[in-house]
């Protein structure tokens, strides 16, 4: 497989956007122009200026610095969520699809149940049970994402398992695990990867929504969703407080969506 980047503008733009954002976020972990927690009465609701590009929030904190840090947190949550949900979901989906029969039936019914649950309820319940914080948010969202990946992995498995090369591998006597990893996975990963990108978007939005309800990442850690949640109270006095973190989310999601778009065009 050759990556024909030239004919794949989505992929290039996506990688550039995501790369730049990731760089900013990583820098934000070690250095920000201003402290992300330092409060100042004088700077309360200071509008965007040369010194404070994105203005200041209700405690006079520099919004640009907080967006840098928040983007990192949001990125981390979304990525871990997807890695968690995708890995487990794919394994479950593959086995269910490969074995078929009652196992498949049971897995798909559980899938239905999780799917039919309002996701916000699951997240709320999870958080009130285990408490909030970064790890629990990742776990709660990760579990929510398992079914969608399981479904895709299963249908890929059903599509591939009847094919010649898989049948021959079976005849040769390869183990189930070996068949799945050496025959199925290489042929299924593109569609799984592209849905992982869609999942990434959903995870960013889900984390933001959870924080919007006050249940996600805890202060003083900044997350983009939490910033928007707070900013919603000061729309009239400081519209920039809501707008910059919001735009950051959109750009973050856009970058990954373009990559996904690009990946799906690779054949």
């Amino acid at each position, binding site marked *: 497989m050759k990556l024909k980047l030239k004919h794949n503008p989505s992929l290039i733009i996506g990688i550039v956007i995501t790369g730049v954002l990731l760089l900013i976020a990583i820098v934000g972990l070690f250095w920000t122009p201003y402290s992300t927690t330092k409060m100042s009465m004088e700077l309360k609701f200071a509008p965007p200026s040369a010194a404070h590009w994105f203005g200041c929030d209700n405690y006079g904190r520099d919004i640009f610095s907080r967006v840098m840090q928040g983007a990192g947190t949001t990125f981390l949550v979304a990525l871990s969520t997807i890695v968690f949900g995708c890995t487990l979901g794919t394994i479950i989906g593959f086995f269910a699809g490969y074995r078929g029969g009652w196992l498949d039936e049971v897995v798909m019914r559980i899938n239905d*149940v999780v799917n039919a649950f309002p996701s916000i*309820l699951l997240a709320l319940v999870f958080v009130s049970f285990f408490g909030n914080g970064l790890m629990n948010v990742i776990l709660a969202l990760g579990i929510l994402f398992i079914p969608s990946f399981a479904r895709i992995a299963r249908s890929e498995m059903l599509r591939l398992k009847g094919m010649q090369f898989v049948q021959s591998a079976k005849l040769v006597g390869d183990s189930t695990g070996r068949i799945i990893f050496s025959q199925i996975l290489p042929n299924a990963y593109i569609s799984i990867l592209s849905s992982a990108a869609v999942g990434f978007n959903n995870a960013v939005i889900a984390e933001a929504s959870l924080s919007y309800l006050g249940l996600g990442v805890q202060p003083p850690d900044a997350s983009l969703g939490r910033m928007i949640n707070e900013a919603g109270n000061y729309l009239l006095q400081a519209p920039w407080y809501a707008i910059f973190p*919001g735009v950051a989310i959109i750009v973050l999601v856009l970058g990954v*969506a373009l990559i996904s778009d690009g990946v799906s065009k690779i054949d």
Partner: protein
Amino acid sequence: MKYIVKKIITLFVALLLISIIIFVVFSVIPADASIAKLGIDATPEQIAALRAQMGLDKPLFERYFWWLANALQGNFGESFQYTGVKVTTLLARRLGNSALLSLISFIMVVIFSIPIGIFSAKRRSVVARGTMTTITQITMGIPSFFLGLLLTYLFSLVLHWFYVGQFVSPSEDFFGACAYLIFPAIAIALPKIAMTVKFLSNSIRSELHKDYVRTAYAKGSTRDGVLYKHVLKNSMVPVITFLGIIVAEIVAGSVIVEQVFSVPGIGSLLVTAITNRDYPVVEAVVLLIAFFVIVINFIVDMIYQAVDPRVKL
């Protein structure tokens, strides 16, 4: 027929499982309805008395059994939070608002995404496609609560077209309610429109490359003729499934948007009921949503089969 019976059984099993999960979850998370209701000044005796009154002192299994027995007869009991108020009464008032909101959002998705999707698929120029992709990609990434905030800022705070919280129940003023709900509906629908547009145009494009299209061209059909006679029909099949998923997402997504726009719907009811550990209400709301989602999936499957007889269910 066998398929339908099987689906109905699955539906009930799923609902049963969900109701059990909620019961178990509510017995393990911290605090119960008595603590939530009595608040800070409660004495241990008061809590014990209220627990007994609510039946929370009975074993989990027994409570579940009685709940189930009543629920099967359509009796979902009384709310813990509002003494003497039936869960069904509480739900009935909120349900209409949420249903209307979801309906308006869905209509918006269908009305806007299908024509835009078709136009978008017909474009050949790189620039037009690029613009279209960029617009849809950006729109897809807007979290609906953020969109909701932007709409509130623009139309409520700046332009004064509507006021957050001025919602009137549709039973009092149907058109007034619809007019108010247009704004939250946009917040819900816009990202979904973008997703559907992208999906539909991809679906049409992949269909356009198929053999029968070439044959049709060879037979002298015009581009639009082929598109509207054959391609559209075939590419609509996956779109219907996709719309099914969208409906489910609209219902789930309205939970947060209802908060942004202060719509008294089942979303806000669910959130407060969870906070108050009011599990009779949570059970009823979640079962209702789950029922809806499963039925929608079922209908989608049926339509899928009707449109494309090759699909065996």
